[in-house]
């Protein structure tokens, strides 16, 4: 089961070219408004592109302008942020919906629903109505409902976004199990989702794919600023020098490369914030100015006009950091990963 999509929709500024092998899960990352939901809509048959084609397993989903398969014929299930469980059916009725809608006998449909409810850990709430379910329970039922349709392609649009962190963590593991051998496209903002659930990632910005590849590669060695942002890394672009990199604005950094690169070639340098040392201004290191502080539990992400550092809150307080404070940054050459651009 392989998926191929090439389509564009001028009205939303989207133009994409994606490929996915059978059984793989692709994480679609990107800022809000990048067009991720539009891509899912095209695959599901709910959004009509201006031009393009998509094929799943050899079946043409659409090939404009001549062919357009209606949503109910595609075998493509869509799971959204909101569970959207049918209010007039019980959880069990919801999960059995696809089977009953395609003509399966009552007994067989019931079995399938029971099976999926237990696989997603929702068998306890089978007889409840959607209004009586918590967010996490509803999402479990929604996952069960989508998969009980035995889709050839599963689409998930930020399925964990509206859940509590703890509930999301549990559900993420459930998703990992049920998506293991399925062809799926998952839209998410969360890098953890990508690492755990996706074999490949594609980064969408302003309607086009700016980077795609196997998950670990892309996220460990981002080539695009937004990818670096999502992966929580700092990304610099510049040219290869003898020691490392000279960035476009003149900063010289020593670094290490994974493969030989000729001097003067365009390169990127990726730096993990936790490996950046921050010191009072004037001391040895790269002069920089703090642009923002983003606290997260007991750590603070300190953004500067050069690199981003990750410091304990106590240190930030001690140094009396605030936007505009001058600081000095240090990073060891082995923590600066240089790669061809």
């Amino acid at each position, binding site marked *: 089961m392989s998926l191929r999509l090439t389509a564009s929709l001028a009205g939303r500024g989207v133009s994409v070219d994606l490929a996915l092998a059978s059984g793989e899960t692709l994480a679609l990352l990107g800022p809000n408004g990048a067009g991720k939901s539009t891509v899912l809509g095209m695959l599901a*048959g709910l959004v009509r592109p201006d031009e393009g084609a998509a094929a799943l397993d050899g079946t043409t989903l659409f090939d404009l302008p001549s062919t357009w398969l209606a949503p*109910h014929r595609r075998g493509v299930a*869509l799971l959204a942020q909101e569970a959207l469980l*049918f209010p007039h059916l019980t959880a069990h009725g919801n999960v059995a919906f696809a089977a009953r809608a395609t003509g399966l006998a009552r007994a067989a449909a019931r079995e399938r629903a029971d099976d999926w409810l237990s696989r997603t850990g929702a068998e306890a709430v089978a007889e409840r109505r959607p209004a009586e379910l918590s967010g996490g329970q509803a999402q479990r039922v929604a996952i069960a409902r989508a998969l009980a*349709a035995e889709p050839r392609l599963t689409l998930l649009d930020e399925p964990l976004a509206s859940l509590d962190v703890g509930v999301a963590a549990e559900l993420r593991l459930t998703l990992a199990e049920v998506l293991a051998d399925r062809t799926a496209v998952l839209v998410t903002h969360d890098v953890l989702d990508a690492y755990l659930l996706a074999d490949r990632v594609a980064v969408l910005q302003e309607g086009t794919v700016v980077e795609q590849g196997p998950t670990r590669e892309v996220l460990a060695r981002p080539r695009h600023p937004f990818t670096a942002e999502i992966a929580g890394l700092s990304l610099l672009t510049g040219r290869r020098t003898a020691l490392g990199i000279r960035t476009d604005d003149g900063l010289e950094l020593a670094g290490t490369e994974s493969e030989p690169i000729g001097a003067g070639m365009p390169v990127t340098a990726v730096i993990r914030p936790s490996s950046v040392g921050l010191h009072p201004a004037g001391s040895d290191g790269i002069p920089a100015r703090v642009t923002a502080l983003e606290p997260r539990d007991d750590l603070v992400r300190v953004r500067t006009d050069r690199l981003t550092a990750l410091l304990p809150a106590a240190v930030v307080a001690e140094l009396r950091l605030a936007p505009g404070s001058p600081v000095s940054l240090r990073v060891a050459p082995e923590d600066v990963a240089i790669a061809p651009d």
Partner: protein
Amino acid sequence: MTTSARSSASRRPATSRPATTGVPAWLLVIAAVGALFVLLPVAAMVLQVDWAQFPALISSPSSVDALLLSLRTSLTATAACLVLGIPMAMVLARVPFRGRGLVRAIVLLPLVLPPVVGGLALLALYGRRGLLDGALPVAFSTPAVVIAQTFVALPFLVLSLEGALRTAGDRYEAVAATLGAGPSTVLFRVTLPLVVPAIVSGAVLSFARALGEFGATLTFAGSLQGVTRTLPLEIYLQRETDPDAAVALSLVLIAVAIAVVAVAHGAGEPLRRRTA
């Protein structure tokens, strides 16, 4: 967010009645006036009835014929309203097409037309000298009564249902489609079940309107006992010679209408709760 965080917070006392209704007092007064405006005339009529004579007045053959005819035709008209009105409401709510606003206005026309004008319009189409040249022999027949009642009652169902369909939106239908349900399956298993309360209330309104229909029936179908003389027409005739009978029959009509509305409302309540 842990569940233990809130246990120490102060708990609100478990009162079942709120301290205020949330509605200003002068509003209650005006609402009461409105209610009395409707209730007092009905109460006055109840007081006017000669209760000793009541059973005899309402059990005459002409009265019984009229009541049964009214019930038969109104129920048939309501069924026709459902069969025609549900598709109309669906198209008006979900299918964008040019001129939709105009079509909606025309469909709702029977609401504002005086019923007699409705009857004249029906004659203009079905009458012997009408557009169809009397090809359909409906004149002076019971089907003519059903046609007249359906004509005036249809907008109630369409109006009630279209509003509900618009509010419900079509997100559930999109999900159902991705689960493999074709358009007809989506209609019967998702769309309609979600608007059952609106269908019920629309049907009740249509039934009540059909039951009380007078002007169009008189103009289009005529008035013959057991064939076309519905209860309102019977009341109108009884006024000439037996005003007491007219009042008694009016109460029967009111009682039937109240019963239908109460039953349908009662049946609708659990449905409303189910789809909330």
